[in-house]
């Protein structure tokens, strides 16, 4: 069991984290952030096992992972 915190303001919605998460825990938000990007969000918290794969791929260091 784990969870991730995504800084929606610095996220650029590249979706690399979503692709990296092989547990399907992440998804795109519906709301744009102030820069116009659609940030990623932890859509299925119950799926997250804290594996950090998403954070390893995040180019904007927007993800912190907790376990």
């Amino acid at each position, binding site marked *: 069991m784990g969870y991730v915190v995504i800084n929606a303001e610095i996220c*650029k919605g590249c979706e690399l984290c979503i692709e990296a998460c092989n547990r399907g825990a992440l998804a795109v938000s519906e709301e744009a952030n*102030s*820069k*116009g*990007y659609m940030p990623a969000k932890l859509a299925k918290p119950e799926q997250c096992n804290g594996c950090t794969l998403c954070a390893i791929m995040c180019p904007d260091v927007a993800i912190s992972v907790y376990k």
Partner: protein
Amino acid sequence: MIERVRLAGFGGQGIMFMGKILAHAGMLAGNQVTWIPSYGPEMRGGTANCSVIVSDTEIGEPVASRPDMLVAMNEPSLRKFLPAVRPGGIIFVNSSLIHEVDVRDDVRVINIPVNDLAREAGQPGAMNMVMLGAMLQHLQGVNRALVEEAIRENIPSMRKNMLEGNLTALAVGIGAGAETPVPAL
């Protein structure tokens, strides 16, 4: 007559193209025109802007650093360029994305919900043309026929759908512009 316009928004909102159409139409009207994009790594920020000047005499300053009109397609753009607008100027605001406008009282604000209008018109990508249509009645250096001609010259004829979509959006914008009240100063 000189019209100095700054157009700004997200990348992908067709800001550059909109500016080019405006400048091109101005040229077809026999005016002097300049069009200048923002260039370089600023682009990375996800924002884009360009400057258009249309004038019936030689253009000195090439860039509309103090524009008569501002087209703000999103909020960061509005914030960035609002202070530069000349007193008495007009700000065309994309009210689909910008909800609160911290207005200066020496400029006029015209709200056009271009995302919504474009979507409603079945041309969600052509919000730029909606905005251009809405501006038309305030511009002296161009007219509808020339803007349409400019659009035709800038869209390859084989992309017929795109061309028509743009013309449709332009018409929608013209209608919206006519309906939108122009605040007095």
